[in-house]
C-alpha cells in the first residue's frame, strides 16, 4: 500500500477548494446521482417481476394512506359496534368478525401497521448493518474481527425464541416490535456490505483518494458509502419483506401490542373462532392474501433491484 507512505507529504500541498469549486463539485455529484437513478429506473422498468411488485406495493401504500377515509370505524374503538359475523353486505364490505368489528376497517388499518413495521424495522436494521459492515470492511484488523464475531453470534441466535424473550423484557408494544425485528435482522446486511467494501477498498478511486491525502472518514463518507449505497437500498427492500413476515409471526403468537390490530393478529383471531373450518372466507382471506401479496411485492422489487444493483450479479 503506497497510499499510507504518501499521505504525510501530500496533504499540505493540496489547497482548500474554493467556494465555487465546492459548489461545482456538489452539482456534479447531484448530476451523477440523477444519472445513476435514471439508468437504474430504465433497467428496472424492463423487469416484469419488479414492475409487478411495484404495482402491488403502490396499491397497498394507497390503501394505507387513505385508511381514515376508507374505513367506517376507527381502529381500536369498534368493540361490539355492529352485529357479529355478518357476511359481506352494505355498509360492511367484508362483513364483521366474531365480536362485531368491521373487517374491512381492520384490514385497511392493518395495511398501515404492516407497512410501518416493515419500513421502520428495515430502516433500523439497515442503519446498524451498514454501519457495522462499513467499519468492519474498511478498517479491518481488530474492528473487523470483533464486529464479525458479534455478527456471527447474532446469526446463530435462534431468532424467534430470542425475539419472544426480548418482547417479554421490553414489553409488547408497536415500537418494541419494530426494535426487536430491527436488532435481529441486521447481521445479513452487515455481511453483504462488508464483502462489498472489502472489494471496493482495492479499487483505484479509493487508493487515489488515499494518495491525495484524504482522511479515512472522508473516504468512507464520500467514496465508499455512495458506492455501496445501491446495494444497501436493494437489501433494505428485501429486509422490509422480512420484517413484515416476522411481524405477522409475532402477532400470530400474540406478542404484539393488544391494541394494535395487525393482519397477523386478524389471522390469529380468525383461526381462534374457527373462521377457517367454518368457511368464513370473507374473514380469513383478506389478511392472509394481503400479507402474502405485500411480502411478494417487496420480494419482487427487492430481487429485481438486487439483480440490477448487485455488482456480483450484474454480469448476466
Amino acid at each position, binding site marked *: 500500500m503506497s497510499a499510507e507512505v504518501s499521505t504525510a507529504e501530500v496533504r499540505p500541498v493540496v489547497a482548500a477548494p474554493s467556494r465555487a469549486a465546492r459548489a461545482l463539485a456538489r452539482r456534479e455529484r447531484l448530476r451523477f446521482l440523477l444519472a445513476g437513478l435514471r439508468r437504474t429506473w430504465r433497467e428496472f422498468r424492463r423487469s416484469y417481476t419488479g414492475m409487478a411488485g411495484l404495482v402491488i406495493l403502490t396499491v397497498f401504500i394507497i390503501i394505507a394512506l387513505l385508511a381514515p377515509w376508507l374505513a367506517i370505524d376507527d381502529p381500536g374503538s369498534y368493540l361490539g359496534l355492529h352485529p357479529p359475523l355478518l357476511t359481506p353486505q352494505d355498509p360492511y364490505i367484508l362483513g364483521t368478525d366474531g365480536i362485531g368489528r368491521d373487517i374491512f376497517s381492520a384490514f385497511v388499518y392493518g395495511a398501515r401497521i404492516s407497512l410501518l413495521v416493515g419500513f421502520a424495522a428495515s430502516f433500523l436494521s439497515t442503519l446498524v448493518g451498514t454501519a457495522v459492515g462499513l467499519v468492519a470492511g474498511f478498517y479491518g484488523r481488530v474492528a473487523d474481527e470483533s464486529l464479525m464475531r458479534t455478527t456471527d453470534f447474532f*446469526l*446463530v441466535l435462534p431468532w424467534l*425464541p430470542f425475539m*419472544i424473550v426480548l418482547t417479554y423484557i421490553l414489553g409488547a408494544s408497536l415500537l418494541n416490535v419494530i426494535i426487536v425485528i430491527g436488532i435481529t435482522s441486521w447481521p*445479513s446486511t452487515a455481511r453483504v456490505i462488508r464483502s462489498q467494501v472489502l472489494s471496493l477498498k482495492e479499487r483505484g478511486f479509493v487508493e487515489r483518494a488515499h494518495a491525495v491525502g484524504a482522511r479515512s472518514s472522508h473516504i468512507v463518507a464520500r467514496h465508499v458509502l455512495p458506492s455501496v449505497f445501491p446495494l444497501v437500498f436493494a437489501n433494505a427492500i428485501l429486509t422490509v*419483506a422480512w420484517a413484515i413476515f416476522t411481524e405477522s409471526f409475532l402477532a400470530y403468537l400474540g406478542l404484539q401490542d393488544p391494541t394494535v390490530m395487525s393482519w397477523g393478529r386478524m389471522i390469529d383471531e380468525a383461526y381462534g373462532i374457527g373462521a377457517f373450518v367454518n368457511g368464513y372466507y370473507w374473514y380469513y382471506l383478506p389478511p*392472509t392474501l394481503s*400479507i402474502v401479496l405485500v411480502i411478494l411485492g417487496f420480494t419482487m422489487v427487492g430481487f429485481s433491484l438486487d439483480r440490477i444493483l448487485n455488482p456480483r450479479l450484474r454480469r448476466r
Partner: protein
Amino acid sequence: MAGLRRYLAMRFLYLAITFFIVISFNFFLFHILPGDPARMLVPRGGVGGGNESLLNIIKEHWGLDKPLHEQYVRFLVQVVQGDLGISMTYRPGRDVEDIILRALPLTLLLAGAGTLLAIWAGFRLGVISAVRLGRPSDTSITLSSLVFYSVPTFVLAIFLLTFLATRRYFSFFPIQGAQSPLPPEAWTIAWLGDILWHAALPLSVYVLGYFAEFSLIMRNSLVDVYTEDYILTARAKGLSGREVLRRHAVPNARLPLVTVVAFSIGWILSGDIVIQEIFSYPGLGYTTWEAIAMRDYTLLQGVFLISAAVMLVANFSADILYRYLDPRVRQ
C-alpha cells in the same frame, strides 16, 4: 494435512468461544426478565401460598440468595453437566432436559426430513429453472418460488390443515398429534405408517415453505456460473450439456446453497414453533410454544440453549462441508 488439522482446531476454538458466549448470554438474558422465579413457585397468597419459609428454602436450594456472579458460575457448571434446571409449569418439577429429550426425536424427524426434502426439491427446481432460463418452465418455477417464499409458514399450515384435515373439506389426514390415540405396536409396519400419516401434512408445510429460498438461490447461482469462461471451454471441447452441468456448473453453483442452508436452520427451528403448534405435533417447537404460552422461563431457557447449540453445529458443519466442496478454500 497439517493445514486441515490446524483449520479444524481453529474452527473448534471458535465454536467453543461462541457457545460460551451463547450460554452466558442465555444466563443474563433470562436474568433480566421480569419476575422472581422462586416467587412463581410459591405464590404470595391463596391456596398453599404465603409460605415464606418455603420460599427461603427454595431460594437457598437453587442458590437464588447468592450474588449474581456465583449464580453465573453455578449455571455454567450445571449446563456443562447437562442439567438445565426444572420446569416451572410441568408438575411435579420435571427436569427441563428430560422434557426436551422427549420432544427431540419428533422434531428431528419432522425438521430433519422436512429440511432435506426442501433442499432436494429446491436444488432440482433451481437446476431445471437455470437450464431452461427464460422458457415457460423457468418462469413458472421462479414465479411459484417467489409466491411460496412470500407465504408465512403459519398461513400455509392453517390452509393445509383446514382443507386436507377437517371434515368440512377433505379429511385425508389426521387433524393433530404425532400418533393415533391408540397407536399400533411400536416398530411395526403399521406403526411406521401411522407416524408417517401424521407427519405428512406438517412435512408438506416444511417442504412448501422452505424449498423456494433454495430454488431461487440455486437458480441465480447456476445462471451466474453459466457465464464463466470455463463453461465456454467445457462446451468448446465438446462436452454435452448434461456433462457440462454435472461436472462443471453444479459443483461450483452449489456453494452458495451450502451457506444459505446453514443460515436457514434458524428459520426452520423458528418455523417449527408455529407449525407444530398448529398441528399439535409434540416436538421441540410445540414445547417452545407451551413454554411461551405458560411463561415457563426455565423451559424456554433450555429450548433457547438447545436451538443455539443446533444452529452452531449446523454452521460448523456447513463450514467444513464448504471446505470439502470448494478446493480453493482448502489450499
